[in-house]
Every structure is written in C-alpha cells, then in structure tokens.
C-alpha cells in the first residue's frame, strides 16, 4: 500500500517552512528535505511527442508483441553539460513496461540481502559451559533449593537454553524466472517514474568529479546515480571521476541488481547496455526448462 500524501501533491511543502518575521517564503539554509519528496524543481520531462524532429537512434531488436507498443524515451549525452537530448530510442515493453509487481521487488531484494547471510551468533548450552558436572549440594538437608548442576539455564553463568546455535545459514534461492522478473519490474518502475535515463555513450570530457555532479544537478536527476556499462573496457575519464564519489557509481551490466537500482535514485543506461539487457532478460520468456546447467552447451538454444 503506497500512501499518497496530499501535501506532496500540492507542492506546497516549501511554503510551510516560511520564516515568522519576513513576508517572503525563505527556506532556512540548513534545511534538509528528504529526497523522497516530490521536488517541484525537478521538472518532469514529458515523454517524446509523436512528431518529434529528433532521429530515432535505436529500435527494438526482438519482436514486439502486436498488442504492445515500444516505450519511447529520450537519448541524452554526457559530453555536454546541458540537457539537450540527442535523439529518441525505442525500448522493448516486455522489459521496460511490465506490471509494477512491488511484491516481486520486495521478495528479490529480501533474497539478495539474506541469501548470503551467515549469522555466526553462537551460545553455549548447559552441557558446553565449562564446569557443572557435580551436584552442588545434597538433594536434601541443606535447606536450599535442589539443583543438579551449577550451569543449568536458571543459574547465573549457566548455559542458554534456546539461544542461537552456531553458524546458521539463511541461504535460499528464488526461482530464476522470479529474479529475472524482479529486474524487469525494477527497470519498468524506474522508467515509469522517470528515473531512467538513456545515454549514447559514457565518454565524458574531463576526469573531474565536479563535472558529473554539476551535470546531475543541472539536469535535476536526483541525489544518487547508478551508471551501467557493458563490455570489458570502461572509459577512463568516467572511472577516475566516479572513483571517489559516493553518490555516483558505475557497475558492469552483469552486476545489475534490484538492490542497487532501488538504492540509487537514478539509473543511467547506454544504448549498448539496453541491447544487452533486452537480450538477456527476454530470453527467459521463451526458453525450455534446463535439462542440465545452462553453462554447458545446448544445441537448440544459445
């Protein structure tokens, strides 16, 4: 259940913070608004109109089902700091416009966090605590309560009855198709909420991190950016610029995952990345069940 707050709708969040002694609505300088707030300064880009003069730089490689139409988006560039789009691109609807299954997103993100988890918390049971083999005092006659060992759980310093036992693994695997669907849902929700940007290539003119930050702020992209690149060689300028930046990160396309996509506000893909992702994610829709692991060669499908 996503709660829609009316405050955000009106955009009057800024107006509530007016100072008491001046008429103009001045924001205090040390105000930190949550980035989750719908920011009126972050202008929503309208989707490209049908009669746009810019060239279509990319069409979908795979066949689009006849009852769906490809998603049209702007293609921008990182070479120039201004936000003029270079052209348009068409994205496959079965990857970038699937149903926003938030429960799948939750499941996949929870799996990502937990399947690697091994909790090393371990306590000793009464038999493992040092000592406590001898009966402390006679059963009868001493006047004290009857006890069998000094390490029973009711004693101070005794063993723990039902504590964590040794390293426990929380490993479990979600079906492959669920994980694939999670990626598709994440990409579709980023696209729907206008947090996905397509870029022609990742070459930037300077290795200066400030250039990227200025670019991001000028285009009102958001606080954190995830740049996804395909291939073995990464552009050096970009690597140098993002090396010491915490909010702008570069990952290879094989490392794309739901957690990173949700953690960063904006996801930036190149045209090559889009092709790679579409190939990989659409293959799972029409494949046979595996007889043996997919890494071994198959004759009938790639």
């Amino acid at each position, binding site marked *: 259940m996503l709660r829609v707050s009316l405050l955000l709708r009106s955009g009057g969040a800024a107006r509530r913070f007016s100072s008491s002694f001046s008429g103009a609505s001045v924001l205090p300088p040390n105000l930190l608004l949550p980035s989750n707030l719908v920011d009126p300064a972050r202008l929503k880009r309208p989707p490209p109109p049908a009669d746009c003069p810019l060239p279509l730089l990319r069409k979908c490689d795979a066949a689009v089902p006849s009852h769906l139409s490809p998603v049209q988006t702007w293609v921008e560039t990182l070479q120039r700091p201004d936000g003029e789009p270079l052209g348009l691109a068409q994205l496959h609807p079965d990857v970038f416009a699937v149903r*926003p299954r938030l429960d799948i997103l939750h499941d996949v993100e929870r799996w990502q966090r937990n399947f690697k988890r091994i909790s090393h918390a371990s306590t000793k049971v009464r038999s493992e605590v040092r000592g406590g083999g001898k009966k402390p005092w006679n059963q009868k006659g001493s006047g004290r309560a009857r006890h069998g060992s000094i390490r029973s759980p009711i004693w101070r310093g005794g063993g723990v009855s039902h504590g964590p036992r040794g390293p426990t693994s929380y490993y479990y695997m979600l079906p492959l198709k669920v994980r694939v669907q999670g990626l598709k849902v994440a990409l579709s929700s980023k696209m729907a909420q206008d947090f996905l940007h397509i870029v022609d290539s990742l070459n930037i003119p300077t290795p200066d991190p400030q250039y990227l930050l200025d670019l991001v702020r000028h285009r009102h992209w958001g606080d954190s950016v995830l740049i996804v690149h395909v291939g073995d060689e990464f552009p050096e300028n970009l690597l140098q610029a993002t090396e010491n930046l915490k909010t702008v990160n570069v990952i290879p396309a094989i490392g794309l995952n739901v*957690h990173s996509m949700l953690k960063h506000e904006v996801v930036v893909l190149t045209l090559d990345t889009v092709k790679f992702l579409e190939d990989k994610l659409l293959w799972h829709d029409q494949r046979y069940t595996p007889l*043996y692991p997919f890494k*071994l060669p198959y004759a009938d499908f790639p």
Partner: protein
Amino acid sequence: MSFPKKPGSKALDVLQNLPRISLANLRPEPGAKKTAPRRGRGQHGGNRSGRGHKGQRQRGNRPRLGFEGGQTPFYLAIPKYGFNEGHSRRPQYQPLSLKRLQYLIDLGRVDTTQPIDLTQLVNARGVTIQPLKRDYGVQLVDEGEDIFAAKIHIEVQRASEGAIAAIERNGGVITTSFYDPISLGIVIKPVPFFLRGQPIPKRMLPGQDMVPYYTDAGNRGYLADCEKIQQARLALAQKYGYILPDISKDELYHMLSMRKDVRQIFFGLAPGWVVNMSEKKILKPTDEKLLKYYSS
C-alpha cells in the same frame, strides 16, 4: 473497448504520481506473510497448549502407532503377501500418449523428418525420464489414436498394440528397443556425457525376462526378424481394419528404414568413440583388442 488494453499500463500510470520506489518503501503483499502460530503463547495457544487435559495425551506418553491396548494389532494380525515385493526393482516406463506426441509435432518441437529417438523426445521436453528411479525408457500409450495423423519413424521402449496400429496406419515405422540404465542416462543427457570425455559404451542386451518381449515381432522388437515384422504389420492391419501403406515407395524411405545397431546408442556414433565437444572432433580407437571388444 475496440483497441487492446496494454497489461499493466494503468498501474504504471498510477506509479508516475507516487513517491519513488526505494528500499524504504518495499513491503510484501498484505496477507502474503502469515506468522506461524506458536504454542504456549497468548490466549489461544497458551494454557494447555493444545495438548488436552491430563493423562497420556497431555504428558506425551501415548503408546506407539498401531498399538491396540494389547490386542493383536491389525498390521500383525493380517498375514503377509508379496503384493509390493520387489516394487523398487520393477522397470518403469514413462507413458507417452499419442495425443501428446501429436501436440509436440504440431508445435514443431519434434522434427518428423528425422527419426524420433528418446533423445529427441527429451530435448523437446515431451517426457521426463529419471533413470535413477528405475525408469527404463518411454512407453507409447494409445490415448489419442483417433486424432493421431503424422508419419514418423519412432523408437520407444514399450508400445501398446493400438499405438503401433495408429503409427503404421499413417505410414510410419515404430520399433521397440532396450536401453540399459547406463545407456539410458547417456541417451537422455548426451552433452554432459560427452563433456565427461569417456568413450561411448556399447548398449547392453536385455535381460532374460525381457528377451521374449524384444524378439517378438508383434511388439516390433529390435531383435525380431524383419520378415516376421512384415507379416505382423499385415496381420495388425487386418485386425484393426486399415490398408497398410507401402513404405518402400515413400520419398522418406531412407529415413524410415534407418535402424540402430543392437549395440549402438546414437545414430552416426559407434561404441568406443570419444566425442570432443570443445574442439569438435571425434576420436576413434585403433587398438585391436578395443576394436574387437567394441564390435562384439
């Protein structure tokens, strides 16, 4: 509505006006995660914790399952009889109905221009064979014989008479052959076997109790005589009342008459050969003893 609705588009439109989906916003569907009830907690799980009132029930001292208070229990009173004796050693055959076979052919998952082998059926994901569960192959069942209309060359492990009639009525060829468990494992998953780097073994002959089945022409066994098979085809045609089409005048006669050797597992590969998939080479043995062993 005359134009088709795009699935999920309404939800995506609604999403545009909602806050950003982030790690703080995720939650499961309401009602998806139900906490398991715990005994000894709360009004309903507590007090006696579902154990009843006093006695052996509450104290956990009930006698073993089947005990009848001293009377000879049912499971001892009834005498033993070997209904299920050796059930785990009986060969099992995964059924394949003609209806399913026709479905696979219609969808193009099975190629009718080549002989249909167990490997082809498994590659088409038509059947699932588990050789470790005493499966010895696939059996053809005659459900769907009235719908079946495809000329195929098929090799199975068992076939009912109606299924044989249905295939031969359409001008096809059916053979029943035997695969021992190791050969079966290789036939089902050839690629992992080739990656092992072992030479292809020779297929073993059936055991004593299966030899009569595979030497009988009525079952189209692979060890039966060719002339007897021809006579059996004519007899079956007479019995079921159809005209037996002449295969020798068929354009695909060469494919329909392809037969595997008794010791052969794959068409085109003989026992003793090693297949190297990465370099795409086949290595054949040259030693006399090996050749003599593999050709016996």
